[in-house]
């Protein structure tokens, strides 16, 4: 065992500070130390994506990153994406379009999909399939995952454009005054 390191993280908006061994993996920190069990462990080799989180604005597989490498980072997990009263459109769409079965890949899948839609708000099916290829699912065959992500994108774009229209009309009203 080596000397412990002083680590600071923000996880789902909450600051965390603790001492950890240099070899402690980020997924271990989240699941064991912080009791955030949404991200799962599936392969420990970066292939399956069950552990996907967003770290400083990028999709990261938490099973192969040391928490020391994440010192100072801002981390979002599925728990930070939406809860019972604040469901994200992706969470709603996955249920609506049967985008999950056993649920084990789902937190990583939705976390990655959220990032994908930030990078590309209106992806084609091909872009979704390519953008999600780092997240494995053994149950669904992906067809309904793709459908869910497409539906969420439409939903978010519709909400976004109506939001912009609302803002625009407000400006017009102000100008008229």
């Amino acid at each position: 065992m080596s000397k412990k390191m002083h680590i600071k993280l923000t996880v789902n908006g909450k600051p965390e500070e603790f001492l950890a061994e240099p070899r402690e993996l980020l997924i271990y920190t989240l699941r064991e130390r912080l009791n955030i069990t949404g991200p799962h462990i599936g392969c420990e080799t970066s292939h399956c994506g069950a552990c996907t989180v967003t770290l400083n604005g990028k999709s990261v597989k938490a099973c192969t990153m040391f928490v020391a490498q994440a010192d100072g980072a801002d981390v979002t997990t599925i728990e930070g994406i939406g809860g019972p009263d604040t469901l994200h459109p992706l969470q709603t769409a996955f249920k609506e379009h049967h985008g999950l079965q056993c649920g084990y890949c789902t937190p990583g899948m939705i976390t990655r999909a959220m990032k994908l839609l930030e990078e590309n708000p209106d992806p084609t099916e091909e872009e979704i399939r390519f953008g999600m290829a780092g997240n494995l699912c053994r149950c669904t065959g992906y067809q309904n995952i793709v459908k869910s992500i497409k539906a969420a994108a439409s939903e978010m774009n519709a909400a976004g454009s109506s939001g912009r229209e609302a803002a625009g009309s407000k400006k017009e009203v102000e100008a008229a005054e």
Partner: protein
Amino acid sequence: MKDDVENREDRVANLKGLGCSRKRVEDARFTQGKGNYVDDIKLDGMIFGDFVRSPYAHARIKSIDASAALEVPGVLAVLTAKDLEPLGLHWMPTLAGDKQMVLADGKVLFQGQEVAFVVAEDRYAAADGIELVEVDYEELPVIVDPFEALKSDVVLREDLVAEDGSLPDGAHGPRKHANHIFTWEAGDKDPTEEVIANAEVVAEESMYYHRTHPCPLETCGCVASMDKVNGKLTLWGTFQAPHAIRTVVSLISGIEEHNIRVISPDIGGGFGNKVGAYPGYVCSVVASIVTGKPVKWIEDRMDNLMTTAFARDYWMTGKISATKEGKITGLHCHVTADHGGFDACADPTKFPAGFMNICTGSYDIPTAYLAVDGVYTNKAPGGVSYRCSFRVTEAVYFIERMIEVLAIELNMDAAELRRVNFIRKEQFPYTAALGWEYDSGDYHTAWEKALKAVDYEGLRAEQAQRIADFKAGKTRSLMGIGLSFFTEIVGAGPVKNCDILGLGMFDSCEIRIHPTGSAIARLGTISQGQGHATTFAQILASEIGLPADSITIEEGDTDTAPYGLGTYGSRSTPVAGAATAMAGRKIRAKAQMIAAYLLEVHDNDVEFDVDRFVVKGAPERFKTMKEIAFAAYNQAIPGIEPGLEAVSYYDPPNMTYPFGAYVCVMDIDVDTGVTDIRRFYALDDCGTRINPMIIEGQVHGGLTEALAVAMGQEIAYDDMGNVKTGTLMDFFLPTAWEVPNYETDYTVTPSPHHPIGAKGVGESPHVGGVPAFSNAVHDAFRAFGLRHTNMPHDHWRIWRTAHELGLHA
């Protein structure tokens, strides 16, 4: 009495019962990261166990020295076979009637075998401890080839050879060689051989159905907690059969069954991997007893792929005979089954090769014979049904390949050959040559619907043009049309011939109606993603007239759920689904008496209508099930005891036989071996359809696992017994990028013996999908002389096939 304001259609819709694509009730927690899988369980003072595993496939263990490991801070104990022996737990029974080492007892038989169990305060300390356990191995000759095993002087299992060198019978009869496990036969040997010897046309082929692995995204694991104060053991784990696990734990540990509580929490996929009992479970229980603390054991991915429950590994040789017109007259099949170091197959006791004797498939074959030889090798034990009923995937692959080979022999279209030989609708119930009684089917209708949907004639014309273009040098791409027609055999099973370790394979449902008209139902099964909490509530809603949204379904806790044999082999809907309907009917029978009393008429003068009992001939006089539930608890009714509960243990009279017709259209780049699945059409007939949305999801998933197995997924060993595919880098799991969109379709042929006519669907797409993908590859090269090449059809193997056929000149 209030007026009937809703119309009947609305009342039916309000129930969300049978046939409704009800959204899943499970999804809220899973989409919000609030699932509760075994690794999410945390208990006060919980410690962690992990294995020292053998790097060798066959070796004698000269010594184990754990002293350095015990010096590591955080390491609490190291268990070896010597520690387990006084408890009689150094070996454990397997599901196949063999026994298996829990921890290496003098030798190891496969790479990754469990040698010692290190218990520590956390996972890192356990890993540190594992590094420092010194094991002195003496390497022994390794056998990874079952044919070599049957000739070799090297004895893998000395424990199964008597001191005088004789071979005692195994669990399934006489053994021919020290490395031989059993011979299992079905059908008539001599008449079959005679028919084949005198046939007009005979096709012969040998094929290897490679070893693979179910590889659920969540690995296997458990948490064992022995409460020494109360003498109670609680065991959480990834168990597809929690009740069977409780009984087995009781039998091997001596702890009385009422003092053991087994809980399967949310399970992250099973596909057969989580049926068996593994050394990790036993060691965790022992470690908890020894330390007095809860002990968690979770496999990593390499442990999972290398050591727990593989699937397939069948070497199959077939002969099929026919008239010149293509009418099949006989089928002969021999299998050499590689079971690894211990026989830990998960099959009903009387079926050591599972239901391989469904290998006559969907065809009216008058005479058939099957023999299976099980063999020990230096590979991991297992032999589970990976998303299929017991060995049905092997059986269906075998017959669907034999049909294609026979079509080549006859120079006949493979779709037509199937059409000529299907069991006809009027022949059901149909008794097959190898013994099974198929309950119902309409194969011709399904086949014609499928061929029409894909424009089969058009595809063949396109293929002919492609071949001509290829020969003319205009394209380097070939086109394959993969046909598959399968009959599954699921819903094990009738207790008269199906048991596992003596436990009859019935299943159960217990229903408790609450006074305000909602309910809880508990079952002996356990969902691993199939959506039981959604679909079983739908069955009940239609049976008892309360909305599915008002019915909680609970499974997996042996203290509360009724005894059942669990979820695998597509048995939940055929068996527990039937129990659910039958228990619902008991509720309804009592409700009828209560309704009649409340309506002041005779029991026989009321009838059930959607969500109520109405007086016959006077539909304005009724009591809703909600009203009846309240009365059941709160009104003194002469001759009827209070409450509204029922339980049913359902022993199915027969298996169910789902079937389907699949067509895969594939383009193959001859120069790279790269395949493009351009189209996949899947017609499934699973009898009565409970939730079309969930059926479709099951089909997508099963087809994708079939794609994996057919096109690349394997557990491969080198000659030294090293596993070459121990991580997801080497073991193929398809990504969203490789998987096509599937077209799903259906016909409905209800099961005549199932209370609601349902047959089960979860495994059909895997069983039927593998031959569809494989036949597409074969079909692409048929015009160039290919008869058979073994799976998996990865790019390299396809390139090699093209090369061997001289297509790279």
